[in-house]
Each structure stands twice: as C-alpha cells, then as structure tokens.
C-alpha cells in the first residue's frame, strides 16, 4: 500500500507517493536526497537522524513519514544562511572543534539548536544532560559541550 505524503522541508513544499512503512528519515535521505541527516542505529539511541518537526527536535528514524503530513521539517541542510554563512551554532562547533568524523554532527547541531532556544546560557551539566539522546564516538563530548555552551550564548546575543 502506498500513501501520498506532503510536507514542507527547509521551507520548500514536497510530496511523494510512499510505502506506508517509510520512515521519515528514509523519505528525507532517499526521496529528497538530503543526505546530511544520518542513520547510526536502529534503536533510537544515537540521535544522528535528529531533525526539527514544527520547531522541535525529533528523531526522524522513529516516526513514519506520514506522521509528518503537513508538518514543517528543518534538516541540517536548511540551517546555514542562504549565502552559505554558518549559523552561530554551526560556527561554534567549528571554533571549538566540536566535531571529528562529522557523522553525529548534524544530529548534534539540530538537537543543540532546539535546546538553546530554552537555554540561552546553559551550564556544562545542563548541556551534558541535553545530550542524553545523542551519541558521539570521536570527541568524548568535551568539545561538543563547549560548542553548545558557546553556540547558545551566541544565539542569545544575536537576538
């Protein structure tokens, strides 16, 4: 059985005929070819697939695409400014060496963007707790924590 699914992704209306069981992440990666959203596990632990749905960070491996019918989806490809300039959170990751292999990075950034909205000046402990659903195997989180603390402050300052 297939079903027609329509939503907005990075500001652009998109629609497709999909098998009902198609995961949102599969739709994003395979149909839209937005491959910045990654799949790192099959048990919703790693958070590499994190995107925003209607402004909230969600794991796109954990819902089927049709649950996002009519939703506003933001992926990592839609975060930087139109001229290519990095968003302050992305810039903070670069300045603080908050990434190594880059695979968990899109999920980290998407999660951090949502977290920073409610935490303009987070403590180290708050940031660590916010990463409960995002795994990184390269950085020991040290520089990710620093990146998110700096990025959140930069976002607050830019308001």
């Amino acid at each position, binding site marked *: 059985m297939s079903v027609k699914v329509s939503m907005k992704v990075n500001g652009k209306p998109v629609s497709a005929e999909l098998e009902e*069981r198609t995961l949102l992440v599969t739709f994003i*990666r395979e149909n839209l070819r937005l491959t*910045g959203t990654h799949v790192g596990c099959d*048990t919703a632990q790693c958070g590499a697939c994190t995107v925003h749905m209607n402004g909230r960070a969600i794991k796109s491996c954990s819902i089927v695409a049709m649950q996002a019918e009519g939703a506003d989806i933001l992926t990592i490809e839609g975060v930087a400014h139109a001229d290519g300039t*990095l968003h302050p959170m992305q810039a903070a990751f670069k300045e603080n060496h908050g990434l190594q292999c880059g*695979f968990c990075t899109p999920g980290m*950034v998407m999660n951090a963007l949502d977290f920073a909205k409610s935490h303009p000046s987070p403590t180290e402990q708050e940031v660590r707790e916010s990463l409960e659903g995002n795994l990184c*195997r390269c950085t020991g*989180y040290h*520089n990710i924590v620093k990146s998110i603390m700096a990025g959140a402050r930069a976002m607050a300052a830019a308001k």
Partner: protein
Amino acid sequence: MTTSLIGARVARKEDYRFLTGSGQYTDDVAFPGQTYAAFVRSPHAHAALRSVKIDKAKRAPGVLAVYTGADLAAAKVGGLPCGWLITDVNGQPMKEPPYPALAQGKVRHVGERVAVVIAESAAQARDAAELVDVDYQPLPVVASATKARKGPALHEIAPDNTCYVWALGDKNAVDAAFAKAAHVTKLEFVNNRLVPNAIEPRSVNATYSRADESYTLYVASQNPHVERLLMTAFVLGLPENKVRVVAPDVGGGFGSKIYLYAEDVVCTWAAKQLARPVKWTADRSEAFVSDAHGRDHVTTAELALGSEGNFLAMRVRTTANLGAYLSTFASCVPTILYATLLAGQYTTPAIFCEVTAVFTNTTPVDAYRGAGRPEATYVVERLVETAAREMKIDPAELRKRNFIRKFPYQTPVALQYDTGNYDATLEAAMKIGDVAGFRDRREQSQRRGKLRGLGYACYIEACGIAPSNVAGALGARAGLYEAGEIRVHPTGTVTVFTGSHAHGQGHETTFAQVVADRLGLSMEQVDIVHGDTSKVLFGMGTYGSRSIAVGGTAIVKALDKVVAKGKKIAAHLLEASEGDIEYERGVFKVAGTDKKKTFGEVAFAAYVPHNYPLDKLEPGLNENAFYDPANFTFPAGSYVCEVEVDRETGAAQIVAFTAVDDFGKVINPMIVEGQVHGGLAQGIGQALTENCAYDDTGQLVSGSLADYCIPRATDLPLFKIDTRETPCTHNPLGVKGCGEAGAIGAPAAVMNAITDALGVKDVPMPATAQNLWRAMTRA
C-alpha cells in the same frame, strides 16, 4: 608569511561540509540503477547447514538475485585472507582455517553470512531475506576463551581450537629473577571484549562497467588501497588495475574499518553478475555481530620486585579470543602489538609472555583503537599500582624508581625506544591533577557518602607502524610504508595526495599545515586528497596512530624533492649556481644577496618553461615519495584519574581526569587535544560502561546500543590535558602520533582509581554499579 603554521590551532578545513550536511559518506552515494543487498545471517553460534532454500525469496517482489555459499564456491571466490603470519613456539605456522565470504556447510558465530538477497529496494531485499529458508543443525558451542581448548572444535585444522601458542622473552631469566624476588605481585583478570561502534555503520556500494570490465567500490574503509589489494590479489582474483576503491567521508573507524569484510567481497562480485550497482549498509544490530570486535584477553600477570621496589621481572600468560575466524590483522594484535609493550616505561630487565590464541563461536576479534597496547598497559599499570599498595610505597614514587632515563633504550621485548622523558609527563600530570590536594578531596567526598580514589597510568605505545623489514621478519604479509605526492599547479597552489585516510582525524588540516608552512603558502592554497585509489598513488592507510609519523613524513620527503627541483629552476632564473640557492618558506634566495624568486614564480616557470634549463631539467613540478620508517615511534604519557563511588548504589563517576602526553612535535594542538579526548572516552568506556557479553550458547546479549553502553555525555568529565615534548629522533617532523593514547592509558588509570576508592585488590571491567556494589558487599 612569517608565523609558523606548525603548532598553530588552525580551524579544520573539513568542518564546513560536515556542519552543513554536505559530507558524502558511502551510504549517501546512489547510482542510477542502484540495487540493495540484504544478508541472511545465522541466528546460531554453531550449526551445520542442512539446506539453504532460496526459491521463495527469489520470487519475492523486486528481487533480482539470491546467492549462497555454493554460488561463491562455484565461482571460485576465495576466502578472506589474514595479513599476518604468526609462528608458534614450536616453529610451526599458525592455524589458518578458511574464512568464506558466505558460509560453506557450517556457521561458526551468530551473524555469520549465509546468503545474500539483492533487490530493487532495501525494503524488498530485507523482506525477501526473511523468506530464505535455512535448515540449521545446531552444534555444541564454545564462546569463552578459557573454555576454548576443551570445547567443541570449530575448524578441522585446529582440533583444540588453538590458532597458535606464541611466546616472547627469556623464560629462564624471568624464572630465576622470580626465585630471588623480595616481593611478587600477582593479578588475574579479563580485558573485556569491546565493540568499536563507529557511529557510521559499515557500508559498501559496488559498481561494474561492462564497457571496460572495471569495478568501482565505494566503501567505509580506513585503507582503500589495502582493501583493493586484498580483494583483487587474494579473494576475487581481479586485475588490480580494473578496480577502483573509494573511501569517501568515513564516519569513524577505530580499527573496525581496516579489514576486508565479506560484505565488501559479496557486493563487488554480485555487481558484475547483475551489471548493476549493489549497495549494502549495516544497521546497528548487524554491526554488533559483523564488525570485528576488540580486546577479549584472559590474563595472569606477575611482577617480581626487589626489596626497594625495583622491578626484577615480569611474567605474563594470556589467552586471547580471536573469535570464529581470523580477521585481517587478528593474529598480530595479541602478540606483536601486545607482548612487545610489556616493558612499559620501566627498566624491568627480564620479561616473558606466552600467548595462546583460540577460536570460539563468537564474532572475529581484531584491532580496536590501541590494539594490543591497551591490553599491555593494563597488565603493566595494574601490576605496578597493586605492587605499590602491597609494598606500601607511593605509586608515583615506585614508578619513578623504575623509569627508563637513558635513551636509546633496548627493552627485553624487542623494541628500542628512541627517546622519552617519563618524569616530565608524570610530574606535570601530578601537578595539573593536584595530587597534593587529593587527601582533602577524599575527606570531602567521604562527608558526602562517597568513596574517592586516585589512580595513575603511565603508558607507552609503539606507533608509526612500521619498518617493513622488521614487520616482515615478524610475519607481516605487507609492507607498512606510506606514500605521498605533491602536485604543484602552474599558479603555485598545491594538491597533496596521501595514502593516509582521514575519518575524523583532520588530516585535511594537519597535513595542509605541514605543506603550507614549508612552501610559504596559505592554508587555502593547499588541498589534501585521500581515500581514492584512482587519485592517490598508493597507501597503506590509517591505523596504529601512524598517519603523521609515516604519512606525514612521506609528504615531507616529496616536499624535499619539490624544493630540490625548485632550487635548480631558481638557480637558472637568478643566474646563480644551484649551490648558492637557499630556500626558506616559499622563497628561493641567492645566499648573501637580495636576489630571490618566490615559490609561485618558480612553479610558473616550471609549467611555462620559456626561460628554463630544458636541456637539463624536465618541465613541471610534481613529486612523489614513499617513506618506510626507520623505527616505531614511542608516544608516552601519564594519566591521573579520580573517581567517586556511591556507597549505596556502587555507581562510579569520574570526577577528574588529567592526561599529560608526549607526542613529540605537535602540528595542531586543537586536533591533538580532540584525539586525546576521544581516546580517553573510549578507554573510560572500557573501564566503566562497555562490555560485549556472550552467553554460553554464543548469543550476543549486548547486541544493541540499548544494551551495550558507549559513554554518554553525562558519563564523562571535562578533561584536563597537556603535552610535553621530546621530538621523535628518526623522522623529520619529530612527530610520534596521538590517535590511540587515550584508549591505551585510560582503563588502567580508572581501575587503579576505583580499586583505590574501594580498598580492594581488583574489580572486573567494566566497573558498573552492579560490579562495584558486589565488590563492596564482598569486601
């Protein structure tokens, strides 16, 4: 440019693409006509295959083909080779059982590949894989190293499941030293099995072109040329010139992506059968049962000491679990990369180590970050700390009494350390970690109901792998040099090709710093290319913290050739003799004059040779070099860990961790610190949270990220790290390598801290709340 780029904290060139989602990992690659593979895997740890029925699967929607071991055998597809021959104590070669890409008659571990289904979509392939009907006849199972020798035989060639018994060192001298020791410290422990768990799962996408009978393989690999060599020369018998291997962006490796895997072979072979691109990407559950695991040693270790705490001898017996088959470098890990490191930082005059390597019904074990060296460090540093406590000598003081201080130093276990300063790193770590204030902190913790402990680890590792002749004499079936090429463009910008693949280490930045610094260029004028056999001349790849020491040196050697040719060109342009040309960071000068030519002017002249010594010199400026290291490099360092253990729950928290490392010269401290952070996290993971557990039936009971705990952000502290520097004496950059240090030193430091906190001799890794609560209840 006046300031040096060497030692500068340059932001990474690779970050923009990763931060914007424009990296390209293997699973991101899709070709026209793409097909998808799904593997049928054994649910049994040991079973005979009575039959494999594929008819139903073949008829399922979208299915293009189903292949079994019989198809591969008929096509004469070879088994997966092992790259290192170990010779046993009796002078016999190790037992090398066949390792078929798809099972032949028998399966020997859960997750072993029985068949592959290829379909138009990934979902269709998976659906159809469920329809393959395999009739298994279960066989008796042995899953643990200690039971292997008396367990049911996995392979005809090794009836006692023993791959080899191997030894290093002077047993008689060791026994004699133990006989007259004032004190002997003995420990028995397990170095727990780990699953590497790079966050990007393994992935492969193979294409075949009938037009020119060529293959292109995209694969998440740490060493594309090695992958190609193994696949073409040993398994598929393809002409090497017809196979291109691309390892694009790779999402972490930690050893697990060194090896040639069966999935790579099967997809490549199938791409030709179907003349369509075939892609397979592991899901995490598959990764747990099919990626090579790490560690899994059972060890008895003894240290003999004189009355003043001087080390007299060390005796180590280890049983190493290799899993069901020999993975690519499995055999050298518990031998060459392990026993040779047992001198540590100390002058122990006599060391003997015997290793029994066994087959069991578990996933194959191979090199995982550190590979043998974490296991060796754990032996040495747990023994030393325990001996100090038993002899009531301060653990730092005991170490200092035994430090090597004269270099070069020949150990009794084959290695010759070129340089080091172990006092410097230990003293710095004690100062930064405020060891002097520990007593007060311990009391404060006590008042909060917590047990606080402090532990050291002073590790050494052998990196910069490896002098090919030495490795060859020890059984390596490959050379271990590295290759690099400097392609100078007519307008003076540079593309550098390196055989050192980067999958998080930041080579595109670090290597560019080396080149830009030497040529007086900006970072933007230098690009690093790696990971494609059609672009890079050759390469042995990235593992063993070898990239800067071996790959970086190959680049420097090629740079030297560029500069040498540049001098000839400059001499012509400046009408001077070649011997009078001096070169410094991008400027060729006639000595003692102000006559000069920039690097860009010389490059331009090389490609527009109107005024050029064409009778003596070829035009162009493009040089390559192969570098085979003269020795290993020996990074070393001192770690101080403080833990708090909750008396009520047994939960341990790392409250402070100080690491002071000596990596020789540091090119980019920001990147080096990041490597240390990551290594520490994996070492702490081994000590506190990670355990790959099999039950007696060979079922993996920690087979997902919900069961196997890789550290979360809340499990780790902010690390205090610093470096001290004794430059490597035998490579031009003075570099040693930094990728594995944290994973090597951390487990012993953490467990020394935990046993200190609890006041017990030993606790098994991982020191989970449950394990510690049990230890406290017993104590």
